[in-house]
């Protein structure tokens, strides 16, 4: 360490210019030889050790989006003016900001923390929450809720319990300590995620329009301050050597590259930042996440007047032996950087002192167009900040459609070997329903979500297991938002273009089912290695599908995150584009819960059912993955969404549940178990109308469908609305509180107690 320290310490810009032949560890830092050559060309000399550290993290896949950029452009290109109507801040900032009316705005974003969570589940997942929450604060917003879409390997694999326990308690341990209600997400088990669990974290914040803050350093002479936790040796190279490479058993453990979280420090940071915003004492602000100070200084400078001067020895350290390069790369958590005018310095310090938050003034904004970093007065970094932050390499990586896809798509579930013995008798169908809802993916996720605080802040109107999480924004008016995240890796594996549109369709449908009007989209695109042309094709198709889908539905992507290299050895995960949709309510009191509770209400099935079992949960249970996924009919989704939103607003429905994984069977069970209220259902008319057998009616995953419970007094008004809009609707039953069963008439009756037991027992069996 001593030797390295000295080497870094003496490696000034001047020294670098004099020693062009000096060997630098660029390959170990994750840079390719062409990238290193480009850095030398940009600087006109070899980089200093500190400059190399900065470029290596900022040009990593994680920070620079170098493989994905050329495709992500579509999100901007396919946005119409009409779609941007509610957009106050779009892609490119820490998070997008959406106007929800009455002067209120919402900012939301989903990010991945996949690689760290595999290496060190508790801290990886915890700091995933911490990072996304700081993105939300950076926009000037108060964080009001979080959600966590999670994907694990097979539930019975020996390593899965380690990851589930660590990741769930990490999310809970961090999020609960911040006072943020966890209102939803996903928990999926599939062996494709065995060595590459997906830990995505979404946060949402609220603010007044006038409170929007951006990450830029403007105003020559303004002071640059670093505040929050001290800088330590954790998370060095997290973005480059961890998040931007595949796992490989032959390489040493990467645990030191995982950050360690301190939720108490973050909670104090939230309150202290909100007080700074209220007092208007910061000009620009940026959170420190991936790439730490390298990212914050270069992004602030390049978004502002273009220059910044920083003295790095002023950074408060946990470990005094850190080298300048390590300080620049450290991903220690709970830190923020702000730009403050000289007049506001005293006011800034008073707020820091009130919250007992440590801070240090690092330097100031300049108009030189250079980011200059000194170490004890000696220049160790002198770069154009744009070349670090925004003008990194861009790759148009080769991609091609996998040859194996044709044969996979030709292998439909219906008629396959695995479909032999399809349940047909009443007894077989009843057993199939129980088998479905006691499968890992359809089982109750209470074991997970009961470890999260859903009540804190007192504004949670719906949370897991409802279709979407709903929080109130304005206590006076009831204005609020609804959010859902969804993805189906099997659908995307079978057809990545359609899979992305299906993920969007489901999230959109969930938000509409809760009664909110969908407004905007965030995404977390989880894929394998971009260096594999087939994975790259999956990625390109997914982005194209999502961008097209957003255009069809009229909801813009406001920001998100790409996570590549989710593969171990040569095997990639299923393409998993997690899509988050945000919707708005004029009054969250009108929200629609996902289960029925009122005896005698009529149950309607909206939409049409086809033989669409490709990639379905049922096919998965039978070990089959082939054929085509269900068709995403976004025009139908839009029509269904309008019906659900209008019906909620006008009090025509008291419950609504979307049909997705597990089809009608899963939806009927979930809607009955939500408030422990049974139903009598008849499906003969549905089978006749749609030309399907009872099995298909129960287990097909056709899209644009929902179940609703309609009060008797509203039935005519509701059916008239569906008829007028030309949307298929069929009364399939009635809520029957006394029965305490789900009764499919003439076929089978399943007591709710039996369904509850089957649904609840799965996760405790594996994890308690």
């Amino acid at each position, binding site marked *: 360490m001593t030797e390295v320290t000295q080497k870094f310490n003496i490696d000034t810009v001047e020294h670098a210019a004099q020693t062009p032949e000096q060997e630098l560890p660029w390959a170990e830092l994750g840079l390719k030889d062409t990238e290193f050559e480009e850095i030398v060309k940009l600087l006109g000399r070899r980089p200093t050790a500190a400059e190399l550290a900065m470029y290596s993290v900022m040009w990593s896949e994680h920070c620079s989006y170098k493989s994905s950029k050329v495709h992500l452009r579509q999100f901007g290109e396919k946005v119409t003016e009409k779609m941007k109507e509610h957009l106050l801040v779009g892609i490119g900032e820490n998070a997008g900001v959406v106007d929800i009316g009455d002067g209120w705005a919402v900012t939301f974003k989903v990010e991945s923390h996949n690689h760290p969570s595999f290496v060190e589940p508790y801290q990886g997942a915890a700091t995933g929450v911490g990072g996304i929450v700081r993105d939300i604060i950076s926009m000037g917003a108060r964080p009001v809720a979080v959600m966590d879409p999670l994907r694990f390997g097979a539930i019975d694999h020996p390593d899965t319990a380690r990851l589930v326990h660590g990741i769930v308690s990490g999310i*809970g341990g961090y999020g609960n300590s911040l*006072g943020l209600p966890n209102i939803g997400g996903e928990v999926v088990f599939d062996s494709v995620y065995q060595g590459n669990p997906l830990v995505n974290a979404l946060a949402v914040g609220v603010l007044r329009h006038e409170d929007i803050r951006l990450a830029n350093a403007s105003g020559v002479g303004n002071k640059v301050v670093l505040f929050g936790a001290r800088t330590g040796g954790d998370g060095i190279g997290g973005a480059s050597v961890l998040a931007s490479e595949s796992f490989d058993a032959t390489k040493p453990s990467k645990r030191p590259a995982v950050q360690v979280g*301190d939720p108490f420090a973050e*909670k104090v940071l939230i309150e202290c930042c909100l007080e700074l915003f209220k007092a208007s004492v910061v000009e620009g602000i940026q959170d420190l996440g991936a790439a730490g100070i390298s990212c914050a200084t270069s992004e602030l400078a390049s978004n502002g007047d273009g220059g910044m001067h920083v003295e790095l020895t002023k950074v408060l350290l946990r470990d005094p032996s850190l080298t300048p390069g390590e300080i620049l790369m450290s991903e220690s958590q709970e830190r923020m950087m702000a730009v403050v005018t000289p007049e506001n310095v005293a006011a800034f310090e008073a707020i820091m002192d009130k919250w007992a938050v440590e801070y240090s003034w690092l330097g100031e904004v300049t108009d030189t167009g250079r980011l200059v970093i000194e170490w004890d007065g000696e220049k160790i970094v002198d770069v154009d900040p744009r070349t670090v932050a925004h003008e990194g390499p861009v790759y148009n990586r080769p991609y091609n459609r996998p040859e194996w896809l044709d044969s996979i798509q030709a292998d439909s579930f219906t008629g396959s070997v695995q479909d032999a013995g399809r349940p047909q008798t009443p007894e077989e169908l009843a057993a199939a329903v129980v088998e479905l809802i006691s499968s890992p993916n359809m089982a109750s996720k209470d074991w997970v979500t*009961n470890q999260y605080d859903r009540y804190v802040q*007192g504004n949670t109107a719906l949370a897991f297991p409802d279709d979407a999480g709903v929080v109130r924004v304005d206590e006076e008016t009831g204005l609020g938002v609804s959010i859902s995240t969804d993805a189906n890796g099997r659908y995307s594996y079978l057809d990545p273009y359609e899979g992305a549109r299906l993920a969007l369709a489901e999230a959109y449908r969930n938000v509409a089912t809760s009664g909110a009007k969908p407004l905007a989209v965030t995404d977390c695109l989880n894929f394998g290695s971009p260096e594999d042309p087939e994975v790259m094709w999956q990625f390109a198709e997914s982005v194209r599908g999502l961008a097209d889908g957003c255009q069809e539905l009229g909801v813009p992507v406001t920001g998100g995150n790409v996570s590549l290299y989710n593969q171990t050895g040569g095997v990639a995960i299923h393409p998993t584009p997690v899509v988050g949709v945000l919707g708005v309510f004029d009054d*969250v009191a009108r929200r629609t819960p996902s289960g029925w509770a009122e005896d005698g209400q009529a149950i309607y099935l909206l939409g049409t059912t086809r033989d669409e079992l490709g990639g379905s949960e049922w096919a998965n249970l039978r070990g089959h993955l082939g054929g085509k996924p269900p068709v995403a009919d976004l025009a139908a989704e839009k029509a269904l969404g309008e019906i659900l939103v209008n019906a909620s607003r006008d009090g025509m429905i008291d419950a609504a549940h979307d049909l997705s994984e597990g089809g009608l069977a899963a939806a009927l069970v979930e809607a009955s178990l939500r*408030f422990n209220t049974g139903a009598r259902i008849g499906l003969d008319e549905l089978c006749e109308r749609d030309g399907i057998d009872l099995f298909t009616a129960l287990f097909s995953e056709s899209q644009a469908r929902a179940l609703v419970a309609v009060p008797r007094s509203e039935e005519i008004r509701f059916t008239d609305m569906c008829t007028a809009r030309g949307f298929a609707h069929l009364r399939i039953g009635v809520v029957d509180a006394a029965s305490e069963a789900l009764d499919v008439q003439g076929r089978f009756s399943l007591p709710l107690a039996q369904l509850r037991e089957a649904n609840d027992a799965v996760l405790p069996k594996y994890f308690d």
Partner: protein
Amino acid sequence: MTETPLIGDLAAPAAGSALSGARIGVVTFPGTLDDRDAARAVRLAGGTAVPLWHAATELGDVDAVVIPGGFSYGDYLRAGAIARFAPLMDKIIDAAKSDAKLPVLGICNGFQILTESHLLPGSMIKNDHLKFLCRDQVLRIENNTTAWTSDYAAGQEITVPLKNQDGQFIADEKTLDALEAEGRVVFRYVGFNPNGSRRDIAGISNAAGNVVGLMPHPEHAVEAGYGPAHTGTDGLGFFTSVLNKLVGGK
């Protein structure tokens, strides 16, 4: 707030304005989370919520105090152990013990702070199942003569959220016997003991009944639609109890 729902015989707005004269302090420590919720509960019950800062050296003009939930100082040493030494806590301890018997309610982390302050006996350790648990919990009101429970019937069962990691109430047998004998077990878990607490105890009081602490969260069950499904306002009685006592001398 608009259209504040009140319970009991309190009719808005006359009763609301009558109660608004009662000022209930809500303490914020670094790491406190449910302070805004507790203040909202006070307002919804008709009272006036007064924010109190942990570092303040004077209690100021308040008639009662709520110490809300959260993770004060991260619970890093032991839940409530550091918050107990805040300057304001000395004032709260003095006022609670004085002849004026300042009503004090500690919820969750607030309860832990009250035991660390020795205003209440016993202590909380990690839940027996070792996980954080959030659920809608049924409680029985065992004692409706305290400052914070007088609007409930003795034996009444209420449902309020519970959410904690260190919620297992423990004390030695002698202390537990004394608490039972003196009627100081104010709340008991019904149907399911969520954390292994001795004798299903969810909350207790001091001998005078002005200081009450419990692990579940009544402040999260004060507004229909934002608490436990279908029974969302069972917690409001905590706040109307103390307001009625302060204003009506009940």
